[in-house]
């Protein structure tokens, strides 16, 4: 970093009179459908807040159900029923859990014996089984993620087999409880190139070990996402219930099949800037087309208890229609996008599955009707309701929406937009600007151009992502937050700028000067402003 220069000022103004214009943020909207989130600072507050055991006295889901259900008495009966059935479910699971645990153990011993007896005669899938603490391949992974229960039982490891890592989990658990004894909380350890970040939640401990470009804060955010992913499969209520009944329960029984969601979420977080920004990307569409799609949903899916209806194409939001008074958090939307991306099985048939959106209400499930609207399985429609019995009603809605979108060429417009690249940096007509991320804070949406040369190879793309992580981390540094950062690196010049309305991260060629860069940013804002109706969803549609 010796050859880099930096300028950090609250307001850049230089002798030439060039100045950044803090005008209205492009893509700004007072009527947002997503909960506006600051990309970072919130998370830390969250941590503190959620650290206290939250007592849910009826979450949002409960509220919606209560509003719509007329018979109060029915409700009581249902709840009792609920409790009873849930209890019996759990006890069934428990009996068998013991056997399962034993099987694991004996299997392990057998395997270990087998290995020591016939060292040359390794198992066929040696790639997976050999990946333990001593293998160089395991050690060289850029980011490890571990999840375990507060009694030290392994739940998930990104690489390698959890059962072979029990001693490692033991050490991590010991560290956590050792610090806890003195009434304190372990947050992170930095050892050489590696940072170990701890997120301690009720019953679960998540640890991220990274030697990459992410900061402690960024790893913490990733761990928060993973924790939410676990909740989205189980709900906080059942997590609490499980561990209340049996402290050393093997949670992998409940999570079997969900590991792939954790894996895919981790992979997505390493390439998709939306997680870093706490924002989603919208599919570029003419606003008339987008309105038509939203209206089709409003007209044909006016169903009681339907909370959110969204359409997603290639991880980009096409539209979102919501129930009045209820908003979706970008974090929950990312969980939904991850679910759609990771599961091929939705492409085979209409699906009906429970999903918990932790930011919306972590105590219960929403029921999701998931289907693809076109033959190529590009456009996915997700209907989220609190009514567990409305599959067939929603299925009819889906057919009507589909018919209408075919009739008015809505699906065609979506697939056209997907086929041609979103937009090129050249469209902005700004020389020396290579790439940028622009987040409109009020709508929690972001936009960025296609990746072009020199960012075409994977290592280059990873490096670019690292630059954004660096810029983001410097600007959102907890000890010294910045409004503007101008950074000259060996291969490119970076400019980050955060205002009330937006966050902008821009990457220039290495030879750009400060006045040029400032001029370019002002031009860029004007470009985004011109295109804002296409790039962002500016009005929020409700049922």
């Amino acid at each position, binding site marked *: 970093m010796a050859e880099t220069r930096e300028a950090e000022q609250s307001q850049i103004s230089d002798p030439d009179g060039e100045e950044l214009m803090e005008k209205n943020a492009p893509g700004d909207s007072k009527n947002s459908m997503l909960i506006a989130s600051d990309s970072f600072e919130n998370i830390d507050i969250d941590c503190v807040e959620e650290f206290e055991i939250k*007592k*849910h*006295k*009826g*979450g949002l*889901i*409960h509220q919606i159900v209560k509003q719509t259900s007329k*018979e109060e008495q*029915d*409700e009581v009966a*249902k*709840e009792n*029923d*609920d*409790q009873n*059935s*849930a209890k019996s*479910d759990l006890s*069934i699971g428990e009996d068998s859990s013991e056997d399962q645990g034993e099987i694991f153990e004996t299997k392990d011993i057998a395997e270990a014996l087998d290995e020591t007896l016939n060292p040359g005669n390794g198992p066929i899938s040696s790639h997976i089984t050999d990946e333990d603490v001593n293998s160089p391949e395991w050690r060289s992974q850029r980011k490890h993620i571990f999840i375990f229960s507060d009694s030290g039982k392994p739940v998930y490891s990104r690489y390698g087999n959890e059962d072979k890592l029990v001693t490692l989990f033991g050490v991590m658990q010991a560290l956590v409880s050792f610090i806890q004894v003195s009434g304190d909380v372990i947050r992170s350890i930095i050892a050489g190139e590696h940072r170990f970040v701890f997120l301690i939640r009720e019953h679960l401990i998540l640890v991220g070990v990274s030697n990459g470009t992410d900061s402690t804060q960024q790893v913490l955010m990733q761990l928060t996402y993973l924790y939410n992913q676990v909740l989205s*499969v*189980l*709900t906080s*209520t*059942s997590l609490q*219930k499980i561990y209340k009944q049996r402290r050393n329960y093997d949670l992998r*029984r*409940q*999570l*079997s*099949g*969900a590991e792939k969601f954790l894996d895919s979420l981790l992979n997505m977080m390493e390439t998709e800037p939306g997680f870093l920004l706490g924002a989603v990307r919208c599919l570029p569409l003419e606003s008339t087309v987008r309105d038509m799609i939203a209206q089709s949903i409003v007209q044909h899916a006016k169903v*009681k*208890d339907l909370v959110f209806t969204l359409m997603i194409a290639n991880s980009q939001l096409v539209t979102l229609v919501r129930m009045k008074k209820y908003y979706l958090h970008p974090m929950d939307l990312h969980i939904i996008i991850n*679910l759609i991306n990771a*599961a*091929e*099985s*939705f492409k*085979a*048939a*209409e*699906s*009906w*599955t*429970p999903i*918990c959106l932790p930011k919306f*209400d972590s*105590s*219960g*499930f*929403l029921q999701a009707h998931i289907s693809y609207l076109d033959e190529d399985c590009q456009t996915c429609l997700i209907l989220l309701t*609190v*009514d*567990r*019995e*409305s*599959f*067939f*009603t929603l*299925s009819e809605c889906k057919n009507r929406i589909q018919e209408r979108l075919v009739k008015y060429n809505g699906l065609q417009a979506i697939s056209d937009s997907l086929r041609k690249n979103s937009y090129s940096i050249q469209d902005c007509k700004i020389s020396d600007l290579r790439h940028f991320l622009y987040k409109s804070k009020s709508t929690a949406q972001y936009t960025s151009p296609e990746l072009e040369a020199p960012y075409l190879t994977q290592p280059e793309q990873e490096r670019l992502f690292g630059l954004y992580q660096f810029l983001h981390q410097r600007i959102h540094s907890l000890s010294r937050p910045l409004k503007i950062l101008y950074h000259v690196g060996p291969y490119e010049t970076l400019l980050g700028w955060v205002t009330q309305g937006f966050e902008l991260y821009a990457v220039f060629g290495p030879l750009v000067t400060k006045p040029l860069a400032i001029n370019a940013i002002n031009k860029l804002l004007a470009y985004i402003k011109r295109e804002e109706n296409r790039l962002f969803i500016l009005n929020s549609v409700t049922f």
Partner: protein
Amino acid sequence: MAVREVKLCLLGDSGVGKSSIVMRFVKDAFKEQLESTIGASFMAKRLVVNDSTFLFQIWDTAGQEKYRALAPMYYRGAEAAIVVYDVTREPSFDSVKDWVKELKRNGVSNMVIAIAGNKCDLEDLREVNTKDAQEYSDNIGAIFTETSALTAVNVPELFTSIAKKLPDADVYEPKRQGSRVHLRKNQQEASQRRGCCGGEKS
């Protein structure tokens, strides 16, 4: 001729081939390494048996443990259920017995139950005896067949025999109304169900 709608659901351990059987029956296709089902998926298929047309509305449920508690949502009100096991995995046959017990306890009284031993093409790896499974099925009055979604053996036949065994529609009709799927209108039934979602309010 009227079309007889039949609500059917598939149950059984994870990975026994429920989705593959449905895919073979509905689309006559087979996919290796099919991903595990999430929640449940729904498909419909028309089948003509002895000049009567049946419209099967098939709920293909997920076998994974975490979805276990959802199963009643699909088999309650179903007129037929196929409980699937994997002939190469003995434990999957043991859970058939648990499923049958649960169906007898909570399902419609005259539910047609079929037991299907899938993956019968893997004769070398067989762990479950045909005779044992046949005997067990006879005991509980269930249809029994060994299928292979891969080679299509006995898959259409399985559904045909279910269709044949269904009680006559006119006798059944009033009862069926009670177990229709548009349950919102049906207060009595709705009251038996969970409020809204798996999570409980504390």
